[in-house]
C-alpha cells in the first residue's frame, strides 16, 4: 500500500482567503444600504461596473503572467477592491472613472508589484487618489441627500447619466446635483471647510439643511452603517481591533483637542467621526492586511498616525477628506514600523 507523505500539521482551521474576503464584502452591506437609501442607486451601478472591470483586468493580467486565472480570481481580493472603490467615488461619476480606477488598482498597484500579498500600497486608495488628482471635477461631484435634491432622477435616468453625461431630459450632472435652494451641494466636510474659510463659524454653518444636529444628514448614517459592519468583522476575527481602535481613538483625540482649542472653527469629534470616509477607512481601508503593519504593536502606531494625518489634512490641507492620503502615507512607513515593533519572543528578556 502506498502511503501519502505530508508535512505537519495535518489538520487545518478551514479559514480560507475566499471566506475572509467575502466576509469583508458582506460587512460592507449596511453601509451600502445606507448609501443607496440616502443618495440613490447610482452606487449600485458603479458597483456592477467595478465588478466587471476588476474581473476582466485580473483575468487578463493572470493570463499574461501565465498563472491560473480562477485561483487568483476566486480568492476574492479583486472583488473587495472593486467594492471599496465603488463605495468611495461619487455615485453619478461617469462610467470611465470607475474603469480607470479599477485598471490602475488591479493592474498597476496590485499585479505589477507581484500580485496578492506583494502590493505596497492599498490598491483601492491608490486608485482613488489617482482619480481625485486626475479628474477633480468628476471626483468631487457628490450628491445631496435625495430629499434635498431638486431634480431627483430614477434608475434608468441614472444609467443614462452615468454613461452619457446627460439624462434623457437633458439635465447635466451639475443640474442633478443642485439642491432645493438652487446651489450645488457639497459634502458636509467640504461645506464646513469652505464656510469657515468664508468666515462663518461652525455652528452657523451647521444650520444648513444638509446637516442634522450631529453631522451631515445622509453621511452620518453611512458612517454608522460602516461602523456596524466593522464591528461584525471584529467579532468574526477577520480583522484585529488594533487598527480601527487606534485610528478612531487618535482622530477623536486630535479633533477633541482642536475643538477645545478653537471651538468656533473646529467641528469637533463627533462630526469628524461620522463624516466623510472615517468609519469605512477605519474598518475596511486601513485594515487591508497586505499594506498595513503586521505586528499588533505596529498596528497601533499605524492606526494612530493615520488618524493624526486625517485630522491634519482635513483641517489644514487642501482636500476636504483625507483618509485616502493618510492611508497611502502610512503604507510607506509600514516596513519601518514592522521592523521596530517585533513582539518579545518567549524566553528573551523575560521578567522573573
Amino acid at each position, binding site marked *: *500500500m502506498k502511503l501519502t507523505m505530508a508535512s505537519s500539521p495535518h489538520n487545518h482551521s478551514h479559514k480560507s482567503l475566499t471566506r475572509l474576503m467575502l466576509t469583508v464584502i458582506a460587512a460592507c452591506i449596511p453601509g451600502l444600504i445606507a448609501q443607496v437609501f440616502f443618495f440613490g442607486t447610482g452606487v449600485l451601478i458603479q458597483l456592477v461596473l467595478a465588478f466587471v472591470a476588476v474581473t476582466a483586468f485580473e483575468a487578463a493580467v493572470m493570463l499574461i503572467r501565465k498563472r491560473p486565472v480562477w485561483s487568483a480570481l476566486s480568492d476574492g481580493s479583486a472583488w473587495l477592491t472593486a467594492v471599496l472603490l465603488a463605495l468611495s467615488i461619487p455615485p453619478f461619476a461617469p462610467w470611465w472613472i470607475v474603469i480607470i480606477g479599477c485598471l490602475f488598482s488591479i493592474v498597476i498597484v496590485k499585479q505589477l508589484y507581484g500580485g496578492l500579498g506583494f502590493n505596497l500600497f492599498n490598491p483601492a486608495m491608490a486608485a482613488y487618489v489617482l482619480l481625485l488628482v486626475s479628474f477633480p471635477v468628476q471626483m468631487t461631484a457628490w450628491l445631496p441627500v435625495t430629499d434635498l435634491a431638486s431634480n431627483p432622477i430614477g434608475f434608468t435616468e441614472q444609467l443614462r447619466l452615468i454613461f452619457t453625461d446627460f439624462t434623457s431630459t437633458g439635465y447635466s450632472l451639475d443640474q442633478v446635483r443642485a439642491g432645493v435652494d438652487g446651489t450645488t451641494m457639497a459634502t458636509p466636510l467640504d461645506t464646513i471647510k469652505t464656510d469657515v474659510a468664508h468666515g462663518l463659524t461652525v455652528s452657523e454653518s451647521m444650520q444648513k439643511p444638509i446637516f442634522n444636529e450631529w453631522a451631515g444628514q445622509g453621511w452620518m448614517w453611512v458612517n454608522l452603517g460602516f461602523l456596524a459592519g466593522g464591528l461584525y468583522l471584529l467579532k468574526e476575527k477577520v480583522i484585529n481591533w488594533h487598527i480601527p481602535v487606534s485610528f478612531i481613538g487618535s482622530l477623536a483625540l486630535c479633533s477633541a483637542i482642536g475643538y477645545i482649542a478653537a471651538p468656533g472653527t473646529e467641528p469637533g469629534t463627533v462630526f469628524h467621526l461620522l463624516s466623510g470616509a472615517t468609519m469605512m477607512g477605519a474598518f475596511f481601508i486601513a485594515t487591508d492586511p497586505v499594506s498595513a503593519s503586521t505586528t499588533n504593536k505596529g498596528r497601533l502606531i499605524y492606526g494612530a498616525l493615520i488618524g493624526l494625518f486625517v485630522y491634519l489634512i482635513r483641517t489644514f490641507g487642501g482636500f476636504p477628506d483625507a483618509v485616502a492620503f493618510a492611508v497611502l502615507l502610512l503604507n510607506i512607513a509600514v516596513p519601518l514600523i514592522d521592523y521596530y515593533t517585533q513582539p518579545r519572543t518567549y524566553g528573551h528578556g523575560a521578567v522573573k
Partner: protein
Amino acid sequence: MEKLLEQIQKGTVWQFPGGVHPPQQKSLSNGANIARLPLPDKLVVALKQHIGANGKLLVEKGQRVLKGQALTKPVANWSVPVHAPSSGIITEIAPKPSAHPSALPELSVVIEPDGKDEWCTLNPISEPKTLSHTQLVDIIHQAGISGMGGAGFPTYIKADTKQKIDFFIVNAVECEPYITADDTLMREHAAEIVQGIELMQQLLEPTVCIVGIEDNKPEAIAAMTKAAEHNNKIIVQTVPTVYPSGGEKQLIKLLTNREVPSMGIPADIGVLMHNTGTLYAVQQAVYEGKPLIERVVTVTGNTIHKPGNVWALLGTEIKHLLDCQGFSPVPQQRVVMGGPMMGFTLPTVRIGVIKTTNCILAPDHKELAEPGPEKACIRCSACADACPASLLPQQLQWFAKSKEYDKLQEHNLFDCIECGACAYVCPSEIPLVQYYRVAKVEIKEQQAEKIKADRAKERFDARKERLEREQEERKNRHKRKAPAKSDDEKQKVADALARVKNKSNDGNEKSAVAAAIARAKAKKLEGQNTEIEPDNSEVAKERALRKEQARKYKEQKELSEDATTPDDKKSAVAAAIARAKAKKAAQAQGAQTNLNDANTAPADDKKSAVAAAIARAKAKKAAQAAQANTDDADTAAPTDDKKAAVAAAIAHAKAKKAAKAQGAQANTDDADTAAPNDDKKAAVAAAISRAKAKKAAQAQGAQANIGDADTTASTDDKKAAVHAAIARAKAKKAAKEADKIEQLDESNSTVEQADNVKYESSEADSPAENKKAAVTAAIARAKAKKAAKEAQQTQSDEDTDQVAKTEPETPSEATPEQTAAEKKKAAVAAAIARAKAKKLQKEGNDQS
C-alpha cells in the same frame, strides 16, 4: 518565590500568548481500557530511540534472548540501552527503516518471538528509599528509560540534575487532538505514576510537584488526585484545553509563570518536567525491575475499526498494530506517527514502535482534509496571533523563502517549537512549519560550514607562515655559506676552469681550424669583404676541413674542370659536379675508403654526423645510378651546418623521388654501406638509411607491381600513404637483412638493376593519374639518361652548366679567404640552384 508558591498552591494558572483550538477527537479512543495485543511475528528494536548515542551491542545474530534482556549496554555519554521486548531468537542485526519521515535505515535488532514471552531475571526493589542517589539513577539508566513524551531525552541525565529544582512538573496535559495514551494510563495506573513521582522527588527534592492535566480529562484528573492525596507535595492542577499547552515551555509558563530562557533548559530556572509515561516506566524499573520494553500507543482515526489504546511492545511493527485494530485504508492514505499537529507521516508501515511513539493516526480525508494549494501570504497575522512563542511567522516565512538567514536569526527562528499552530490557522494554507524546519537546517549547515572554513583558514594561515619561515631559513642558509668560501675551494674552482680551457685547446684539427680562421680573418682585414663575420667558429672549422678534403679529391681525381668558364660560379658548379662524378666513380670502383675518409676525418661529432649525412647522400646517388644527382652539389657542398642540412634535406627528397621511380633496393644497401665506422655515425646513418630504405621499398614495391605503382600513383593521398607505409615496412625488413657495411658490389649490381627497373617503371607507370607519379617518372627518366651519359660527362656537364649558371661557387673551391657568410649564402644558393636545375632537366628530359 514564596508568593509564587502561594499562588500555585491556590491553584493559579497563568496564560501563554496565542494557542489554537483544533477539534479534540479524543472520544474516538478514550472509551476503552488499554488493550493487550497478541505477540507480533517480529520485533524490530532500533538501537537508538533517544537523543544521544547508540549503546554497544551485547548480542549477536542467532542468539536467543529473554524478555527484558539487555541488547546493548550504555557506553558514551548520553547512551541508553535497549532491551528485548520478548523472548526469542535474534534473526538479524541490520539497518532497518527508522521511525522518521525519511525512514532512513538505522541499526536495529530483529527478534523473532518464540511465543513463550519468558522474562529474564528481574531485580525488583521494594524499598527504594534505601537506594542511594547514584544507585537509583543507575537503575533508571540501565532500564533504558528516555523521555516518552516525544523528545526522548535520556531520563537518567535529567534525574541526575545538579541544579536546584523548585518545581517538578508532571506533563499529563496531552494537548494534541486524538491522543489519549496518557489519559488512559493515568486512569488505570494512577498509583504507579504517583510512585514514580515520588521516586523522582527522592532524586530531585523539589519544593513542590505539579501535575498538569487538561480539563478535557476529568476521569484522569480524579484518578490522579485520589492517588496523590497522601502526598501534600504533589499538586494536581487542571489547565484549560488549548493547543499547545502541553509544550514544555508553555506548560512551565502556565503553571509557574516562569519562562525558560532562550537556548537554555528548564533546570536553569529551577524547573524539571517529565511525562507521565516516563514516570510509570521509572516506577516499573525500580519496583518491578522491568526495563522499558513496552508503552501505551493510541491507534486511532476513522479508518481504524477499533480505535483505542494498546500496550505495544517496543519494536512492534506499525503494520501489526493496524492489523490488530483493523484498518481500511482510503486512497491517498496517510499514516501519521504522533498527533495531527506535530506527527509525521510514515512512508511504510514496516517500522517498529519506539519509546516516543505515542499515537498511530490513520485518518480519512473527511476528518483531516488534505491541504489545498499554497497561496500568497496576505500578512493577516493570524499566525502571529496563534504563536505560543510570540514569534512573527509571517515574517519568518518571508525570510525563509528568500533565504535571509540573518534576518531569520534576528526574528528568533530557533525559538520556534514547531507546534504547527501558525500553519493551522493560515488562510492561505502555507506550510509554515515546513519552511522553518528547512530554514533551521540550512542555518545549522551554514554554521557548521563556517566553523570548518574558519578552521581551514587557520590551518592555511599556519601553513603559509611555516612555508615562509622555511623559505627565509633557506635563504639565510645560502647567505651564510656564500662568504665562507675558503681559499682551497677557490683554488679548486680555478683549477677546474683551467682544465676546461686546456681541453678546449687540444687537437690538431683545432690548430688547423684555427689556422683557417686566422687566414679568413686576414683576408677580412685585407678588405675583401666588409661584412661582419658571424660567430660560428666551429662551422668555420668544419668548412676548412671540408675544403681540405675537397682539394685532396680534386687532386686525386684529376678531372678536367670546366676551366673554360671564367665565371667563378660556373667553375664552382662544374667543380662540384666533377667532384660528385668522381665520387660516384670512386663508389663504382669500390672506393669506399673515400667515403670512409670523408666520414672518419672529422673528429668532431657534429662534423662526423654531417659527413655521414653527406656520405649517405652520395651513396644514394650512386645507388640511384647517378641520375638523380644534381645533388652532387648538395653532397659536396656542406661546409656549413646549415648548408649540410639543407643539402641533406634536398638529397632526401630527391632520393625519395628516385626511389619511388626506380625502386632500387640498392638504395637501402647503399645507405647501409654509407654507414661510417663510428658507432654513433653508424646508428645515425642506419636510421637515415632505414628511411631511405623505406623510400626504396616504396619504390621497389611500386616497380615490382604495376598495381603498387598505380596505388602509389593513386589520386587518394591517404591510400598512397598507407601503401607507402607498407612499402616502408618491407624496406625495413630488407634493410635489416642487408649488411650495413661493404655492399657496394651489391649496390652496384642493384644500381644496374635499378637502372633497368627504372626504365621499366617509367613505362609501367599508369597514365599519369597522379601528377607526382608523372613527375617522379620524369625524374627517373632523367636520371636514367644521366646514368647513361655517365661516360660522356662533359655533355652533361655542359647541360648542367648552362642550367646552373647562376649557381654560386661551391664551397669546395672556396678559398679560406672567403668569409663564412659568403660561403653560407653560396651553399644555400647552390642548393636552390640545383633544385631549379633538376626541375629544368626534368622538364627538358620529359620530352625525350
